[in-house]
């Protein structure tokens, strides 16, 4: 796994932790600890994305992340079902 793949994996791990909190909050909507953790993980995720963008350019995961400059970059990177997706 290269550095880019490692960093992507760290972002995905936080995405997963955040999703877990979403499901937990659906059945525990007043749980303060879960809300605190969600805030903490959102911050960590934003920091990792800033780090990614410093090194590799815009972090594109939804169409709304695509920069409006010149080319439609949505199509450039590998697709999730490609074997080189994490490195690409």
């Amino acid at each position, binding site marked *: 796994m290269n550095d880019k793949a490692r960093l*992507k*994996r760290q972002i*995905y791990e936080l*995405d*997963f932790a955040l*999703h*877990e909190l*979403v*499901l*937990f909050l*659906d*059945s*525990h*909507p*007043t*749980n303060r*600890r879960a809300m605190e953790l969600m805030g903490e993980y959102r911050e960590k995720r934003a920091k990792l994305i800033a780090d990614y963008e410093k090194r590799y350019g815009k972090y*594109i*995961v*939804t*169409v*709304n992340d695509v920069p409006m400059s010149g080319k439609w970059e*949505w199509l450039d*990177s590998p*697709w*999730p*079902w490609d*074997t080189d*997706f*994490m490195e690409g």
Partner: protein
Amino acid sequence: MWQYEKKLQYPVKIKNPNPKYAQIIITQYGGPDGELGASMRYLTQRYSQPYNEVKGMLTDIGTEELAHMEMICAMVHQLTRDLTPEQIKESGFAPYFVDHTLGVYPVAASGYPWTATYIQSKGDTLADLHEDLAAEQKARVTYDNLLRLIDDPDIKDPLKFLRAREIVHYQRFGEAQPTRWNDYGGAADKTA
């Protein structure tokens, strides 16, 4: 509506194609307890659901199931790439191949195509939630069975992740107030 995220929930990277494994893993796409059915079951049950808490669960778990469907399809796709005609003939993949080439199509391991009869939307909170609890357990058993038959770590790793998700979803559905028969007032964790 939905917005696509260009990523898998958990990465799939399989080094060695294996059409034998693809033919059994595909059941978690189009089989009776697969991820397509799981997603359709939950997303469909939402409309008659009176409890906001359960509407939330059905939406968020049903959405996650779409991501699981994408992981299973990625596995089937990677397991069937670069095949020779000999491999197709020897692995028992020929019947699927003549019908779908290398297209990923929702069928069970037995070859039956996906059908809406695999799911239910009964319009009754208790009936629907109990269907959902049973569905999570049946999907968990299917992952157990796949893990018994497969020995490639590249395949086992994402399958173990998906198996664990069935258990978490079962837990969340079980926490929904309508399935907690001794406590209908306040939040499920009101003592937390």
